[in-house]
């Protein structure tokens, strides 16, 4: 039975944005801090640090989850995706990100990475997601500048684009 001592750092093996990684973390380190401080992926933002604001939302095994309510040790063996995984390359936005840009779905951008990860998970799982589903997923996020109307419009546009893409490819 593995027992990890509080005084030391311990290895955490997991998949991050499609690549196997091994990081070192104290038991008390949160996933949000592991991503930002140990691995250097600062796209995941940290707001309230008690699960209310949604800024730190990432995907764990395909499901949106709060990185600030997850201990680094809890993702051993899991598949973690962060906002850095969305854009296909540094010069090109993902369709969801591009829709946010077109529809003014962000202003200061602090809450955006978390919202993108929730909506990305929704649109993968439910390609026919409508306004109510989008609002339900957005209810786990706080945005204090843009407001939610343009975010909903951006998500609806991205969902429609995705459906068209699938029809064309079919």
């Amino acid at each position, binding site marked *: *039975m*593995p*027992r*990890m*001592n*509080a*005084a030391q750092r*311990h290895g955490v093996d997991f998949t991050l944005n499609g690549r196997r990684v091994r990081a070192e973390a*104290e*038991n*008390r*380190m*949160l996933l949000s*801090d592991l991503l930002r401080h140990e691995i250097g992926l600062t796209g995941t933002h940290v707001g309230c*640090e*008690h*699960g209310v604001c*949604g800024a730190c*939302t990432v995907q*764990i095994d395909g*499901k*949106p*989850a*709060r990185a*600030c*309510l*997850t*201990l680094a*040790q*809890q993702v*051993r063996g899991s598949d973690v995706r962060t906002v850095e995984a969305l854009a296909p390359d540094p010069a090109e936005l993902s369709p969801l990100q591009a829709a946010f840009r077109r529809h003014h779905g962000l202003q200061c951008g602090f809450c955006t990475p978390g919202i993108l990860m*929730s909506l990305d998970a929704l649109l993968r799982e439910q390609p026919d997601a409508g306004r109510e589903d989008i609002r*339900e*997923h957005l*209810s*786990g996020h706080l945005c204090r500048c843009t407001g939610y109307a343009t975010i909903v419009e951006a998500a609806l546009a991205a969902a429609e684009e995705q459906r068209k893409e699938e029809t064309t490819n079919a």
Partner: protein
Amino acid sequence: MKPASFDFICPDTLDEALSALSEAGGDGRIIAGGQSLVPMLNMRLARPGVLIDIMRLEALRRIETSGDGITVGAAVRQAELEAWPNLLRDLPLLTAAFPWIGHVQTRARGTVCGSVAHADPSAELPLSLVTLGGAVSLRSRKQKRKVTADDFFIGMMATDLAEGEMIEAVHFPKARPGSGYAFREVGRRHGDFAIVACAAVADDKGLRLGIAGVDDRPRVFALPALDDDQFEDALNDIAWSLNAREDIHASARYRRELVRNLGRETLKEASRCRA
């Protein structure tokens, strides 16, 4: 915010988990999904010296149906029960309650039993368990016992759990045909903690109304079948019998008023569903 230091144990079997918990004494805590415990750790409202992670124990990951009830193991996530194919048929009250439980993002990680162990007086899962007349299976290295949900919750975030004991599973009685169920809640925003939440069951024995967010634990009241003009007095009696809390979110008077109105609506909806 950073949690205080703790040892972290990942047992391979339930026996190992129970031994570790017994060894840690009052300093040990079980961690499952962490959606209630990690905020407490972050704010240092909880400072356990040892955390025991039970999410890798297959024996606790099961949703099982027996003759008259559904047993949900301690490592079953809320989203897993929410997506369980028989939920609407066997636990319609939970189908109605789930959208109110935190957010999609917390239900994906949080467990059903974790919410019960946390025992927040406004939480939906403890309320549903008490209203349905459910039970909690507790286990320590030395013994197993089962207590009714109503006996398990003893106060504000306080339960009957003893040192060295953990929740192994919770049991929900299965919905009976011809019964009606309803769930309603008032909060500042969707997904916030409830100011008042009501759960109701209507069946051939009468009505049951569960209320969370008012007293220091979820409370349940049995009522006879009521005519339309009898609701007001019955709910007024219930409102005054609760020890209503007053806090930054709502006055005790407002909470009592919500019990009268939301309670009536929830009971009526459950009665309509029965018909």
